[in-house]
């Protein structure tokens, strides 16, 4: 029986909370925000219909506390909870708790989250569903000698990955056997810190692979669809920074095979809701199963831009037990979309998080531009959370137009108060390998080994030199550059002096 959702509590913050508020408003569903101390006046709190304070700034004392979220849901009378991504989005215990409390969790079933959240179990499920997987092995972490032997069998270079992992945390590339012990210890301790679970496994490390993922959408009535691919090969420290759809190397035939593979693991696991099946793709376009993310992805807007669908709306419809309103053959990708993740990070300083107050914040607009921003002017960028402040997406008839529009939009974007990755993205948009679509997950490491994203042309260098020299000049001489009003005052003073000179009586 379908059940109309009337009010959704959003267990998240930043741009994704706002994304969900917007979907709710479009659907005439009331939205409930939650906020920590530091987020009291955050943008998501201002836009939602209701807002509940849930504690101190650290997420472990607010956004991650099941009791507080459930309590806010009950007090507000919300009949569903949308977890966004991150925080509780892939927490099976929380999904179960919602079910137990009679609140709809907008996401897959708790047992699906558990199964696919464990990379080892997910790998087994993928193999059962007939998906190709990268050669790999589980290891006895306490027995270094046997673990090292397993690593030799898989073949170097290898990748050590956290069983409970995601987002690049607890992941280490080991090039040679003598780096194995150190890599194992590092990956395991990082995994323990990030996920409270130090178990790791190893995989063959593919050279210069592409990361291509398939968006899936499954209802409770046995319909399993895919919405085509996203290429997310531009990564820094295993974190995606630029995504696009379609992939520059995709063919209809490959899309059909990868789509079928994603659908078959969804079917195998009885998947419900929106999810993403990630693949690694070799230089000769062989694909291997990586993992399934049981949530809405950060980069979902590029799929929305090329398919015309609203993924959050679809998630809500599925949660209401309604069958999908379209079939596989209705899904058509039109044009090309690119997303640049704008982080409050300092590219000149090893991309360390940059915190502070946004003294000025202006987002780009115009044809083909979509900005999902989590912040507005005067917001504080806190140290407690992920430093992504916005997602800038552009759409074009083709990839070239999408890139040109991205360059235009990056040029309009202005942020004062914190350092951002806008300049970094502009550099990438000008990179000839990027514009040629020659991508791989080692793109940044290969193209920018010194992390230097400041190469510029003569015209820009000359203009910047003038700007910098003028800055020093006016600071030293305390010449404020003039506003129009001051300028007219100067004219009056000048004219007076001039007249005085003319009528000189001395």
């Amino acid at each position, binding site marked *: 029986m379908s059940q109309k959702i009337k009010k959704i509590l959003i267990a998240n913050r930043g741009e994704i909370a706002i994304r969900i508020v917007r979907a709710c408003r479009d659907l005439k569903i009331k939205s409930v925000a939650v906020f920590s101390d530091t987020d009291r006046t955050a943008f998501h709190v201002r836009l939602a219909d209701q807002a509940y304070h849930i504690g101190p700034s650290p997420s472990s004392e607010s956004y991650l506390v099941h009791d507080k979220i459930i309590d806010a849901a009950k007090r507000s009378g919300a009949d569903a909870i949308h977890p966004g991504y991150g925080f509780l989005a892939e927490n099976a215990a929380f999904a179960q708790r919602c079910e137990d409390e009679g609140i709809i969790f907008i996401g897959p079933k708790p047992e699906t989250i558990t199964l696919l959240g464990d990379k080892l179990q997910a790998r087994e499920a993928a193999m059962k569903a007939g998906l190709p997987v990268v050669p790999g092995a589980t290891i006895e972490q306490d027995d270094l000698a046997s673990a090292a032997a397993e690593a030799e069998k898989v073949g170097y270079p290898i990748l050590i990955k956290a069983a409970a992992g995601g987002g690049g*945390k607890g992941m280490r590339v080991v090039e040679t056997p003598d780096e194995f012990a150190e890599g194992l210890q*590092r990956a395991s*301790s*990082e995994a323990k*810190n*990030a996920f409270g679970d130090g178990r790791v496994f190893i995989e063959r490390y593919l050279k210069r692979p592409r990361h291509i993922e398939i968006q899936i959408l499954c209802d409770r009535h046995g319909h399993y669809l895919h919405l085509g691919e996203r290429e997310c090969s531009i990564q820094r*420290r295993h974190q995606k920074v630029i995504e696009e759809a379609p992939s520059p190397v995709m063919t209809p035939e490959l899309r059909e095979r990868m789509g079928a593979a994603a659908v078959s693991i969804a079917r195998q696991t009885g998947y419900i809701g929106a999810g993403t099946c990630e693949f690694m793709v070799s230089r000769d376009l062989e694909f291997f199963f990586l993992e399934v993310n049981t949530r809405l992805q950060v980069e979902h807007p590029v799929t929305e831009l090329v398919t015309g669908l609203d993924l959050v709306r679809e998630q809500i419809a599925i949660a209401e037990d309604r069958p999908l309103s379209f079939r596989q053959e209705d899904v058509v990708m039109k044009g090309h979309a690119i997303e640049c993740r704008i982080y409050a990070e300092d590219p*000149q*300083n*090893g991309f*360390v*998080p940059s*915190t502070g107050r946004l*003294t*000025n914040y202006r987002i780009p607009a115009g044809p083909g531009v979509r900005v999902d921003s989590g912040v507005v002017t005067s917001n504080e960028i806190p*140290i407690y*959370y*992920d*430093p992504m402040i916005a997602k800038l997406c552009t759409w074009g008839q083709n990839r070239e137009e999408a890139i040109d529009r991205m*360059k235009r939009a990056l*040029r*309009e*974007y*202005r942020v*004062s108060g914190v350092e951002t990755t*806008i*300049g*970094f*993205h*502009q550099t990438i948009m000008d990179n000839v390998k990027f514009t040629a679509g020659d991508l791989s997950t080692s793109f940044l490491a290969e193209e920018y080994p010194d992390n230097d*994203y*400041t*190469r*510029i042309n*003569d015209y*820009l*260098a*000359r*203009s*910047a*030199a*003038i*700007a*910098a*020299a*003028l*800055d*020093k*000049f*006016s600071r*030293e*001489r305390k*010449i*404020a*550059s*003039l*506003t129009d009003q001051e*300028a007219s005052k*100067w004219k009056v003073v*000048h004219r007076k002096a001039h007249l005085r000179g003319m009528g000189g009586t001395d």
Partner: protein
Amino acid sequence: MAHYLVTVDGREYDIEIEYQQLRYEVVINGEQAIVQAYDLDETRRLLLIDDFSHEVDIRSNCLGNSRMVFMQGRDIQLDVEDFSLAQLRKTAGISSGPAIESVLKAPMPGLVLEVKVSPGDRIKKGQPLIIIEAMKMENVIKAPADVVITEIPAKVGDSVEKGDALVEFEV
């Protein structure tokens, strides 16, 4: 009139500036340019360089001669020196690059997970010194040059703020 030497991305510009009622007369590498400047806020300015519009953001938190300019969506790092001082420096054969400080400071707030060196250690450039956890990522702080460790103010388990001294050394 003022005379500067600006270095940007390996290029040098000899720039003379004169302020003439409402506008700047600039001579850059022998070519004349007329510039109008309007302040938009503390860091942003609108420049019309020979009527070409540039909205620039000049980061003023840079110390001394170095400037960070953001324009046309690009981050641009520059050095601005007094021309005569730059000439003196060049005759003395000193490079304009920033001197390596003898204190390594925390680049971000975080938790000290591991200290990989001890006072007295001779460390090669790029060798790991200290590991800091920030935003759930482990960040390895490496030696900026070949150094000898003198003191280590940071201890394992310390919560450090951005700019706190972590490791002191001699180059």
